[in-house]
């Protein structure tokens, strides 16, 4: 159980899965650079961030719902939580997360959604078996079952996230083509950087001869 003072934003979970250093840059070093991908994500969220509720055909939609979990030590806001009417006075919560682009191979989006589900389970004393990821292109909903493996990965990620924030030490950069080239923090992270010490000595001695 984490005290509320140590809660971390749930949005960091997807960064942690994508790249722990990216997570450190954003959440420890407070860096943020916008690029096309982040701008698209921001625009996509403008509707859901307005909040509010609506109900249609047995489904109640709750936008921008605040979340927290003592066991994961996380807080945040769900894009949308759907409450499906199962029977009279019994509503099943289902988290929905909006994402730009197409379904991704890495687990980042699923882990973030699972963390939201665990928050909801704690808050509403219920059990949630699945949630949805809504991808903007193609406009498609993906069902995410919250199985044991995904829950375990989510808990593990939350622990590593807390350990990194506690130490304040950024994980070392490691260049990975599939992730680094589309990361908006590439120039700040400099995954291809060399030793500054050796570079300086070399340049100063070579250029003076």
């Amino acid at each position: 159980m984490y005290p509320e003072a140590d809660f971390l934003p749930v949005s960091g979970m997807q960064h942690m899965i994508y790249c722990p250093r990216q997570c450190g840059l954003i959440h420890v070093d407070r860096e943020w650079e916008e690029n096309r991908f982040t701008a698209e994500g921001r625009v996509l969220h403008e509707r859901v961030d307005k909040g509010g509720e609506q109900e249609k055909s047995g489904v109640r939609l709750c936008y921008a719902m605040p979340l927290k979990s003592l066991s994961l030590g996380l807080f945040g806001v769900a894009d949308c939580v759907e409450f499906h009417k199962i029977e009279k006075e019994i509503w099943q919560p289902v988290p929905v997360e909006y994402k730009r682009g197409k379904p991704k191979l890495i687990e980042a989006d699923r882990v973030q959604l699972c963390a939201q589900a665990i928050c909801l389970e704690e808050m509403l004393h219920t059990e949630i078996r699945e949630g949805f990821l809504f991808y903007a292109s193609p406009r498609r909903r993906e069902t995410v079952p919250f199985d044991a493996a995904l829950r375990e990965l989510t808990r593990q990620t939350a622990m590593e996230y807390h350990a990194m924030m506690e130490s304040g030490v950024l994980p070392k950069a490691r260049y990975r083509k599939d992730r680094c080239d589309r990361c908006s923090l590439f120039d700040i992270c400099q995954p291809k950087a060399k030793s500054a010490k050796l570079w300086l000595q070399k340049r100063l001695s070579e250029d003076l001869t």
Partner: protein
Amino acid sequence: MKPLQNILYITKPGAYLSKERETIRIRLEEGPDMKIPIHGISGIVCFGTVGMSPWLMGFCAERNVAVTFLTDTGRFLAKVHGPLHGNVLLRRAQYRAADIADKSGTLAAAFVAGKLYNCRQALLRCIRDHGETPALRETEKLLSDRIRKLTSIEDCDTARGMEGDAARSYFSAFPDLIRKDDPAFAFSGRNRRPPKDAVNALLSLFYTLLVHDVRSALETVGLDSAVGFLHKDRPGRPSLALDMMEELRPVFCDRLTVSLINREQVRASDFLTNPDSGAVTLEDEARKRVLAAWQKMKQETLTHPFTDEKIAKGLIPFIQARLLARHLRGDLDGYPPFLWR
């Protein structure tokens, strides 16, 4: 790398700046109002009696736009500061490093090495273009010798001593960089408060502009611009900005001063001498021209020697600040000063 944004210089006396939605509205004493979108502006520098609404100040703070007020001669008055940026762990690391003798000594030596290297590049450029003079050759030798020694130095006082030495020699050779044979551009060493000749007036103006840029760059990455390594702490002094200025002066200020004079972009008639104080300042229209030249210089592109990125020259302070922050946080094994090609 993030795009180089523009700095808005307001030099019209009596101008008043306010916020209108996402734009900066500039009201002048005569003529129509102007509106400039804040998007694409990274700083506002106001000279003399220029006013600004608190709403615009707050908006600038929120958007990370640096606002600085200077007197009409370019002396620093005040800077508008929003909430502190960046990481408290970084500032703590900076303070700790400043208290460790060999760590701050190594950093001081790196700043000085960068400075002497770039001063030497300025001399070599001149030798290459116009042939050598005894003063240029002699200073070049002295600088080379000091740079070699600096790689193994770990104490601030030695670094400071070398910096002082080298700066004297560099400024004694500086007149040889000026190819214009006009007594108006004679130069016999640095003087300021006030600058007493045209060359010093230009150098002082550019140093003020560079301090502004370096300071915003340091604060943007979350460093405390007042806690330096080469320059000791002194209340009110942006010591870290002055540290980082050392390596950038030859690249930004000295070079531009020399080329403005050599290319006759400034003339003797552009300067005014105050009969009482002897202070030399730029006349209004010429100052506008000189500020435009400064902005244009910052748009030149080059390849950063350490990161190998192609960038606008104006982003150098920002990249150096970032590299320093990374070093202080233990993410990079040293601080690579900007070495000018």
